């Protein structure tokens, strides 16, 4: 029977091509707009940590004086990071910041590249599940006893060493030789949750060097550097002992017990620092956030996107109301035919389903066309605004979501017209026309 209805639906659509096109267009534009905004929203609000979201914890400290900032800063001071690294409560932990270094190889003709470099600890790779092609992270001992070792990513390895196993080779960073110990696979979580301070939708760094080298090599910070205190900082050592916030800090815990234990440890740390004259605020405290909370408090999804999703939802609603009106008109015009079918023995349910199949078919068409709109508008926006690819790829789920929403929406819009037509008294329309 379904195929009979499908056949009837197709005939009916062909019979009123303008009106059917109008309805398909209405729903497809609604779907197109909704999917466009939803796609960006979805990509922005994704939690790339997956099931490790609860194990990875960002650490914040309220170290400022009482009249300074009114909220936790996203980063820590170097001295706090340095002290926190001594805790043995977390399973893994890393302090980090981003810098830029000139990259050279042993080839004298190689034109130096300025690359962004993440300065971090060996735990970083395990914590954030960084996959390796060759080698592995530097040894844990390097985190305390600095060694000139480096991990690079697949793309840079391709560029510098034609993709071959480069473990043991030398890379010059700011003219200093570093030994390559690992090559990571292409890996770039989006949003870049472990460091959102300078934009959450950037690519991951190409190069990783040990944090323990920072005081020796005096790596500049390319991230945000924020001070609540007026201090004159004229040397790297002054920077390291200043109250400037510029280090990101993450720990990994196995469960809530360990998390609580770490919270306790931090509480004692704050108290101890207060004895030393720091953390001079009644609000002085530590704050722990898992990945989900971290994305939330840092408002990774911009307000604009939420507004757009909301407005496009309303837009879809208008399209549905529009479609509902047209369907009603179209179906009721067909009342005489329906009267005949009813007289001949079609039950209300059969008439209802016949019309719902037609509506569903229109919805399906609208969904496919809407997907095309969404794809078009995303590519157009991405080309015109030079957007990050991570935000403009049509997500796989949308291929399912678009027709589903379209059909569901169309069916909702179709219920009333279909009900009206199937509940009309057939005898009214059987008298001669």
């Amino acid at each position: 029977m379904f195929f009979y209805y499908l056949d009837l639906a197709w005939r009916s659509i062909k019979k009123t091509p303008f009106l059917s096109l109008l309805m398909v267009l209405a729903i497809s534009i609604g779907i197109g707009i909704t999917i466009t905004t939803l796609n960006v929203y979805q990509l922005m609000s994704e939690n790339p940590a997956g099931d490790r979201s609860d194990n990875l914890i960002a650490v914040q400290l309220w170290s400022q004086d009482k009249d300074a900032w009114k909220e936790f800063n996203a980063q820590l001071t170097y001295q706090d990071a340095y002290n926190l690294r001594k805790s043995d409560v977390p399973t893994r932990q890393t302090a980090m910041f981003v810098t830029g270094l000139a990259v050279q190889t042993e080839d004298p003709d190689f034109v130096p590249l300025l690359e962004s470099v993440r300065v971090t600890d060996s735990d970083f790779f395990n914590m954030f599940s960084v996959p390796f092609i060759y080698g592995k992270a530097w040894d844990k001992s390097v985190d305390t006893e600095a060694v000139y070792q480096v991990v690079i990513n697949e793309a840079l390895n391709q560029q510098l060493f034609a993709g071959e196993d480069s473990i043991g080779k030398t890379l010059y960073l700011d003219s200093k030789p570093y030994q390559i110990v690992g090559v990571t696979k292409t890996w770039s979580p989006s949003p870049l949750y472990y460091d959102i301070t300078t934009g959450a939708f950037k690519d991951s760094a190409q190069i990783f060097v040990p944090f323990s080298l920072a005081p020796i090599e005096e790596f500049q910070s390319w991230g945000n550097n924020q001070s609540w205190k007026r201090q004159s900082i004229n040397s790297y050592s002054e920077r390291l002992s200043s109250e400037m916030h510029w280090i990101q800090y993450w720990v990994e815990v196995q469960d809530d017990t360990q998390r609580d234990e770490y919270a306790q440890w931090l509480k004692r740390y704050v108290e101890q620092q207060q004895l030393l004259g720091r953390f001079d605020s009644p609000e002085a405290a530590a704050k722990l956030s898992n990945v989900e909370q971290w994305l939330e408090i840092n408002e990774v999804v911009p307000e604009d996107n939420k507004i757009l999703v909301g407005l496009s939802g309303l837009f879809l609603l208008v399209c549905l109301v529009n479609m509902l009106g047209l369907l009603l008109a179209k179906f009721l015009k067909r009342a005489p035919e329906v009267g005949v079918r009813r007289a001949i023995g079609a039950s209300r349910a059969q008439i209802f389903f016949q019309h719902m199949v037609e509506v569903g078919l229109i919805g399906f068409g609208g969904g496919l066309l809407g997907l095309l709109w969404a794809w078009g508008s995303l590519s157009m926006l991405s080309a015109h605004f030079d957007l990050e690819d991570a935000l403009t790829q049509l997500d796989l789920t949308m291929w399912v979501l678009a027709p589903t929403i379209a059909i569901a929406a169309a069916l909702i819009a179709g219920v009333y017209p279909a009900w009206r037509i199937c509940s009309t008294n057939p005898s009214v329309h059987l008298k001669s026309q």
Partner: protein
Amino acid sequence: MLSMKNISKVFQTDLVETHALRDFNLEVQEGEFVAVTGPSGSGKTTFLNIAGLLEGFTHGDYFLDGVNISNLNDNKSATIRNEKIGFIFQGFNLIPDLNLAENVEVPLRYRGFNAAERKRRVQHALEQVGLAARMKHLPSQLSGGQQQRVAIARALAGEPRFLLADEPTGNLDSMMARQVMELLENINKAGTTIIMVTHDAELARRAQRNIQIVDGQVCDFTMYQGGARQQGMGTKADKPHLVTDADKPSDESEQAQTEQAAS
């Protein structure tokens, strides 16, 4: 076959209550050919709609082929319409987008026959009305008489026990009307019970039995016995004109309903 006892039908509008049928009684035996006449607004159409299970009724009992119709749900009455009743309308009511075969096929679809069975029955039904060769034509390509024959084929395809015809020749010229009438008589001879509503006294006379509805009630009925009672019928035919005005509300309520349904 068909038995109506004390059927009444009341149309309720905001202002008036209209009795379209009141204490309507009728028995039709299997194999009968019954003609129903009556002035417009007398309740003919209401009777036909109730008989064909297109409308419910307010009071009374209605048995069709032994089944009590009073409290059937929509599904069951649709099944009965589909399997036991065939409809023929004054306006033919073919579905204009479907070709002849597809039109005849409609009731068979709802009955759930498989493709082979549908094909066989469509073929057979169209042969009966002499239009098997034009299966692929659209209704608009046929004359009125041909269209009505297709409508009859559609009614026959389900092999119903019972045909309801509403002014089947009303839109046809006299020659075509005669053809259609002969077709109906042949169908009746083959065993199908027919109830036909008509204005045309001459046509009505060709039925075995005449019923006149006046003011929502069976006024008189006559067995077909040649010309014996014709005179009497003629005098009565004047009377309905007097009641037409009194019946007006019924007409209006129907119209109001049409308007509402079309909105």
